[in-house]
């Protein structure tokens, strides 16, 4: 371990030992109790601290989830981040107002400073050539730095009840008082009412601001109204989540909801529920040990929900996509086997219906074991029956139908490419190998119509007709018919 490495470890340990217990000491009676008794204390809800913490974090989770949904679909995630950091000087000023942690003063201070920060962002954007992300980063840094200066100044003041002020950095749900809770309730209700009343205005300005303006909506007013609500959400979340992580509360539950649904109203519901669950989980876990900050637990709770949505989401989830991909490749493989069987039979002009494993293996350039595995798959899907101890494959009617339609797709597509797209006959096979599995019946019929019901592919082999596909037996063999290469499209 080199010296620099050691130094950083010491710095980290110092932070843990110095900062966290300093916070823990003020929560009072939490120390020296076991995890199970803390958990018991949490779930009995007897302790008002627990009740306030739980209800408070759930309320802020709902508020942040709802407003965060609009932040996410309006692509304003960076704005949320900026706002949540920039309110810090406002918290300090609110404290300095009457030298106590009065929720109203802090709320007003933080909201005003938050609005000033968005104003500064707008001025810089309109008067300079700087782009939005640069301006946001600049304002975030500046305001946060001012906040840190004010905070260190407050720490050195002799007067005032400074207890709980440090919770604004990492968040401590246990520090939520009944006054704070009353406040959070009011804000949550305001946010919910605003979203219910102005849902359609928020929706249309988020989706298509130009169109909204052209229909006479006051888009600027709506935008700043929404920003004000976001600022409210940030401020009530500050105490429990902390300045550093509030923006994650806006974004993570909403991002998880976004992955799960395609409708805005459902996204709002989901994000609110996710935010609420994350808040409750964070309050619980931070309660288990002395001095555990709430913010990281709430955010990690939200991240867990996001991870679940990412992995198991029914439509866009990774696992579903993987399963779909797998079932598609299995289907393609089955269809290719059927096609090979068809080719073998076609080669002997469909005389004698069974195909032996060896013939199939030769045709597919595989081992007999592989061919056997393929044959078993076909049998399991009722596409084929096996005879003579599994050595002879007979296609079922369903198997014939599928085989005919794949061969038909392949040959029609080849003919289409050579005739309509003027691609050389020796270039079309590989493309048809892929397309044959995805062509819909409607498209195939249209191609057939366009080719004037030609019955020979570019290599002179007969194309199974729709009647062949529906019959469910070997196609009528037409080796004697004159080769029709199809008309031009």
């Amino acid at each position, binding site marked *: 371990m080199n010296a620099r490495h050691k130094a950083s470890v010491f710095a980290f340990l110092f932070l843990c030992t110095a900062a966290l217990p300093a916070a823990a000491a003020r929560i009072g009676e939490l120390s020296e109790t076991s995890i199970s008794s803390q958990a018991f204390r949490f779930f009995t809800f007897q302790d008002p601290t627990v009740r306030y913490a739980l209800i408070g974090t759930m309320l802020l989770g709902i508020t942040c989830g709802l407003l965060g949904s609009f932040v996410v679909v309006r692509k304003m995630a960076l704005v949320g981040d900026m706002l949540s950091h920039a309110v810090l000087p406002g918290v300090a000023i609110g404290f300095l107002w009457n030298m106590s942690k009065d929720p109203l003063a802090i709320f007003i201070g933080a909201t005003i400073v938050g609005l000033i920060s968005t104003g500064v962002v707008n001025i810089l954007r309109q008067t300079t050539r700087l782009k939005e992300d640069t301006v946001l980063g600049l304002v975030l840094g500046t305001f946060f730095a001012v906040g840190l200066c004010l905070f260190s100044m407050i720490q050195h003041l002799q007067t005032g009840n400074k207890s709980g002020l440090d919770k604004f950095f990492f968040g401590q749900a246990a520090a939520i008082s009944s006054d704070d809770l009353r406040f959070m309730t009011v804000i949550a209700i305001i946010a919910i009412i605003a979203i219910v009343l102005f849902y359609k205005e928020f929706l249309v300005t988020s*989706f*298509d601001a130009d169109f909204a303006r052209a229909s006479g909506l006051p888009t600027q007013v709506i935008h700043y109204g929404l920003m004000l609500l976001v600022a409210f959400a940030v401020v009530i979340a500050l105490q429990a989540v902390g300045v550093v992580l509030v923006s994650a509360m806006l974004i993570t539950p909403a991002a998880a909801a976004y992955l799960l*649904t395609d409708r805005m109203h459902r996204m709002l519901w989901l994000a609110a529920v996710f935010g609420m669950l994350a808040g409750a989980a964070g309050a619980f876990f931070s309660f288990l040990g002395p001095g555990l900050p709430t913010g990281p637990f709430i955010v990690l709770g939200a991240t867990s929900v996001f991870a679940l949505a990412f992995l198991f989401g029914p439509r866009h989830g990774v696992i579903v996509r993987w399963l779909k991909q797998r079932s598609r490749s299995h289907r393609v493989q089955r269809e290719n086997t059927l096609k090979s069987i068809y080719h073998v039979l076609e080669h002997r002009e469909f005389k004698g219906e069974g195909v032996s494993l060896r013939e199939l293996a030769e045709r597919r350039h595989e081992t007999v074991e592989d061919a056997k595995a393929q044959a078993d798959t076909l049998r399991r899907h009722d596409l084929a029956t096996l005879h003579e101890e599994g050595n002879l494959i007979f296609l079922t009617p369903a198997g014939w139908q599928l085989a005919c339609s794949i061969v038909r797709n392949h040959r029609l597509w080849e003919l289409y490419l050579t005739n309509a797209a003027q691609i050389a006959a020796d270039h079309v096979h590989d493309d048809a190998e892929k397309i044959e599995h995805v062509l819909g019946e409607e498209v195939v019929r249209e191609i057939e119509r366009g080719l004037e019901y030609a019955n020979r592919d570019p290599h002179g082999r007969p194309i199974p007709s729709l009647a062949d596909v529906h019959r469910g037996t070997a196609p009528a063999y037409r080796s004697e018919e004159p080769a029709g290469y199809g008309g031009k499209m």
Partner: protein
Amino acid sequence: MKNSSDEISQARLISTRDSQGSANGHGSGEVPLEIHDLTVAYHRKPVLWGVDLAVPPGKLVGIVGPNGAGKSTLIKAAMGMLPVSSGWVKVFGEPVKKNLKRIGYVPQRESVDWDFPVSVMDVVMMGRYGHMGLVRRPKKKDHEIARACLDKVKMLPYANRQISNLSGGQQQRVFLARALAQESDLYFMDEPFSGVDAATESAIVTLLHELRNKGKTLLVVHHDLPTARDYFDMLLLLNMRVVAFGPTKEVFNYDLLQKTYGGRLTILSEVAHAVRQKEDAL
């Protein structure tokens, strides 16, 4: 310095001389769109100069011109969506802000995020928002209108699809349906033919003619000259100023198109550049 202001006044002269139809219109309440001496600047760089325009009712008007000619800017400014440096816009004889309800709009398809979590029906319903007023919810009548409009563009079967699953042509049909749902008398459309298949293009043309025959006035930004001649009753040739405005068969000629797409642009954009530099120096 003197030189550049001379150029500006000359440019104004050209535009007023060439824009036909600007003579009538004053006082008549039934002129769907009247624009007087409109100048628009982006970041202090003028992109539209002294536009005069009076569009008669019941016409399908194509707006053509090269890239950067200010076609989108003109329709956005006409709807009062951009700050203008000078001039005014009247819609049916009233300032545009008062008559937004009589305006329908099809923005450029690329201007929105098609992954947005809304259904086709949600988007078309947005066309009704202007008629509903703040806070109000869509009523039965709004739903009926939205469905009828979707049916009109043959997208009713897709009403409950999410918009990201649509092809370019389908997306454009949805935007048209939304504009139809606005039930307006004056329509602005920004490149409704961009990125659509041939079937959609002819369906849109039929629809535009239908609207025109009902007495609606339509201004359509279009970038394909050969089809412009067939599609539109009147053409507005635009290149930072109005080069010409009149019936298609009168203005679709070599000289005017040459003027629109040819060398004229360089002088104006140089002046625009000079103006900007002068202001920066101050």
